[in-house]
């Protein structure tokens, strides 16, 4: 955090190349968050890049009482949401799918336990991509970026209780998406 502030001061004093440090540090997080919202690499890169430029322009307004990451993720999240609205991409809704599978059903549980780490990551990634933009962003911010509920609340402009409810619902949806993916995989294997 102190490093972030040091480089921010340098950027504000006119050494705009110092911004490269912040780009290198946060580019993967920004891209992942944008990707989770937009579900598309090209759009995510464009949105994340746009967010960095916005952050650079607004850097003078950043108050050092907060974490730079929280302030920056807020820009990334809202930029990605704006892109998503512009693109109006069709995101698979949970309601449109037939979820009659039960995770407690032994076939899917066994398959989940049997899958290797890489496959599990692949399945989870697929399942997260099926979540809607807000749910995917909340899950990403909570797990990948390890933000607290309060920080997610600040980033998304939702109340802390609302974030908690969203996180809970996202996890339930994620489980159901995983069931669906595992069901398809099982069918392919059989």
């Amino acid at each position: 955090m102190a490093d972030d502030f040091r480089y921010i001061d340098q950027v504000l004093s006119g050494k705009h190349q110092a911004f490269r440090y912040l780009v290198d540090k946060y580019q993967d997080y920004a891209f992942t968050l944008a990707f989770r919202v937009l579900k598309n690499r090209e759009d995510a890169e464009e949105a994340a890049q746009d967010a960095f430029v916005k952050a650079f322009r607004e850097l003078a307004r950043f108050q050092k009482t907060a974490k730079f990451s929280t302030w920056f993720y807020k820009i990334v999240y809202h930029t990605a949401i704006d892109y998503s609205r512009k693109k109006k991409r069709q995101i698979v809704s949970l309601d449109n799918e037939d979820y009659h599978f039960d995770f407690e059903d032994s076939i899917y549980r066994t398959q989940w336990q049997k899958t290797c780490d890489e496959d599990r990551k692949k399945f989870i990634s697929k399942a997260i991509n099926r979540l809607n933009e807000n749910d995917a962003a909340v899950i990403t911010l909570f797990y990948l970026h390890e933000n607290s509920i309060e920080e997610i609340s600040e980033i998304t402009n939702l109340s802390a209780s609302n974030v908690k409810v969203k996180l809970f619902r996202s996890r339930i949806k994620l489980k159901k998406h995983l069931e669906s993916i595992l069901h398809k995989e099982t069918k392919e294997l059989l």
Partner: protein
Amino acid sequence: MKKCNEQKIWDYIDGELNPEEIKAIREHFKNCPKCLEEFEINLSLHLEIKKMDCMKPSIRFGKNIMEAIELDVSKQFKPLLNVFWKRICIGGFGTVAFYAIIIAIFYPHVFAEPNTPKVFSLWSLFNHPATTTVLGVFVTAWILYFADHWMQKRFKPEPAR
């Protein structure tokens, strides 16, 4: 915890329960295999998501950002006169100043009183109009070349690392 409650299970995993609630949920797990199984599934999912890595953008991503920022900076600090007009103004001023110096040194009779005898000076060598024209062209080109060189360094934004 007396009833099955998935939210409580997640709160337990997130470490958001107080000691009494932790004790109650553990008691509940002893008597409710369904909730215990739910807990195991949720915990496994929780740990798996935590293990997920960040995605990597393309190799040019960082460079593209720095280029976009440089462009932004150059627009933000756009000078009142663009480089072309600065070169013209400073080059023109330099040329005029140079000629003024030349005239002041080599053409003293310009400032002399009328009807005074003209003393031989170095200027007589350049007194022919053709010589002055050629000299003027070369000197102007020379001044413009160095002025341009200096201004390119002075007004060009620094490249990104």
